[in-house]
């Protein structure tokens, strides 16, 4: 497989600033594999939307390269946009028009079949709203209609910036199922941004974590889970932590004391039992012995805070 087909989106050394000397994005090298659901994570203001706006050509690129479907965005903008659907931040809908009219004016441009309009409305769960004015829609309905707009041209790539904003828990689950289905049944690559890992960890196959304009992590979800396991630790509290540390270090030199606890790297259960025995045999009272597992959210926070 060549580079062109391997990555649906690829940015190289993407750097952007709104004011001189202050990089909003700093050397972002994003690689979104074809066929993946890529979760683009980061706290508010991390640079997610700026990255997505650059990828869509909504911001003038200053430095770096953007390739989509293996083609340079600068040279093939129109051809690329023909195969792409997007939703950036708030929905872009005309309130004085009905849902069907909002879709119809884009159907004119994409020249997609008119039958596609009821189809996408059905797909996003708005089958009976075709003739309802969008100004009467709730935020959640607008968000769904925006997804319908993004799907109108049967895109190969969907770029969604926080698409669950305004959706109720049920709506979030439905949206997740819809995106999974689109990815699995139609092979659509999805790049979805969020500031909540918990919201997308059940959906994505790949993850990119951005903070203060820098890409801190990029890889598959199992890679992130592996990182989680790596960061799990054994913690101990005893009646004499100082002496315990000396005893433990004779078996596990990496052990250290932190915030009234002894912390060790994750050990097999047999070794944990051996450690406990060793302490008890040396007249140490063990009050607490546990494996501390970081969930994905803590890994995310740890990456962001470091």
């Amino acid at each position, binding site marked *: 497989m060549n580079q062109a087909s391997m990555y649906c989106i690829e940015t190289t050394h993407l750097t952007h600033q709104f004011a001189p000397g202050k990089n909003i994005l700093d050397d972002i090298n994003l690689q979104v594999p074809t066929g993946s659901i890529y979760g683009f994570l980061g706290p508010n203001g991390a640079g997610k939307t700026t990255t997505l*706006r650059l990828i*869509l*050509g*909504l*911001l*003038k690129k200053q430095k770096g390269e953007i390739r989509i479907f293996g083609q340079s965005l600068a040279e093939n*903008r*129109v*051809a690329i*946009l*023909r195969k*792409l659907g*997007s939703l*950036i*931040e*708030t*929905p*872009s*809908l*005309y*309130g*004085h*028009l009905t849902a069907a*009219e909002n879709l*119809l*004016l*884009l159907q*004119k*441009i*994409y*020249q997609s079949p008119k039958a596609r309009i009821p189809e996408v409305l059905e797909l996003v769960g708005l089958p009976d709203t075709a003739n309802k004015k969008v100004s009467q829609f709730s935020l959640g309905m607008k968000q769904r209609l925006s997804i319908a*707009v993004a799907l109108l041209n049967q895109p190969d790539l969907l770029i969604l910036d926080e698409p669950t904003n305004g959706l109720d828990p049920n709506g979030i689950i439905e949206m997740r199922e819809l995106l999974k289905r689109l990815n699995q049944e139609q092979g659509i690559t999805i790049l979805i941004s969020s500031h909540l890992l918990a919201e997308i960890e059940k959906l994505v196959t790949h993850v990119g974590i951005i903070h203060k304009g820098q890409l801190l992590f990029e890889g598959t979800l199992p890679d992130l889970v592996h990182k989680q396991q790596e960061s799990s630790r054994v913690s101990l509290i005893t009646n004499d932590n100082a002496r315990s540390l000396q005893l433990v270090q004779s078996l596990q030199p990496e052990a250290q004391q932190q915030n009234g606890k002894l912390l060790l790297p994750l050990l097999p259960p047999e070794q944990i039992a051996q450690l406990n025995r060793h302490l008890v045999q040396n007249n140490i009272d063990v009050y607490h012995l546990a494996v501390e597992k970081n969930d994905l959210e803590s890994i995310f926070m740890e990456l962001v805070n470091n």
Partner: protein
Amino acid sequence: MATILLNSIQSEWMKTKRSAAFWLVLSGGFFIPGILTLVHLVYIKKLGKIYANTPFWEKWLINGWESMSVLLIPMGIVLATSLIAQLEYKSNGWKQVHTTPQNLTTVFFAKYTVVLVLMLQMFVLFGLSMYLAGAIPAWYYGHIQYPKEAFPWGRFIQINASFYVMALPIVALQYLLSIQFKNFMVSLGAGVALVVAAIIALSWRYVYLVPYTYGAIYYLQLQGKMRFKSNILDIHYLALIYFFAFTLLSYILYLTKKEKG
């Protein structure tokens, strides 16, 4: 390319459906003729005198243009053009428009065409309703003598077309302001200020330099009341030069805009 532009124009035209700009253009076209019709239906005695004043139809139309040319048309253009561009800002629509597979030239000229056609619609509606405003009282009160002269369609179209040309620089500059500035008040405020400045400039020797005055100047020329003459070019050419210059400037600014939604 032509098909793509046509599709884009259709798409842009659909956005004006039921919009404030659409209603403004519709009511703008009927406003003065509507008032004239009512006045003449009420003050029936004046009607006989007016109908006797020959050539009735040309004088009738020029009379209708009095307030339209100086104030209502410029203000209507300022408002309607700002409202059309505002449709995108209000609906966060620019980012949607700019992620559709159209080049920027198509987007710019499709929207611009819609603005120009909407304005043309206002002029056509005004012309037709001025004819009706002249005819309805006579039809309604059968005893009043209807003007004997044939309706001068050619002259009617020529005068209306000239007023449209005079309005083009305002359309172009308002379009530039409306798509450049997100804040509705910028294009609206600047437009209103320029219209007011143009009214003041009518008594200025160099009034021909101010494109917002051209409608009023043409009206005064038709009435034979314009104090100053243009030493440069006929006012039609001046209007077209300003129109093309503002359009080019607007296009360049649009293409080079760093943020597109």
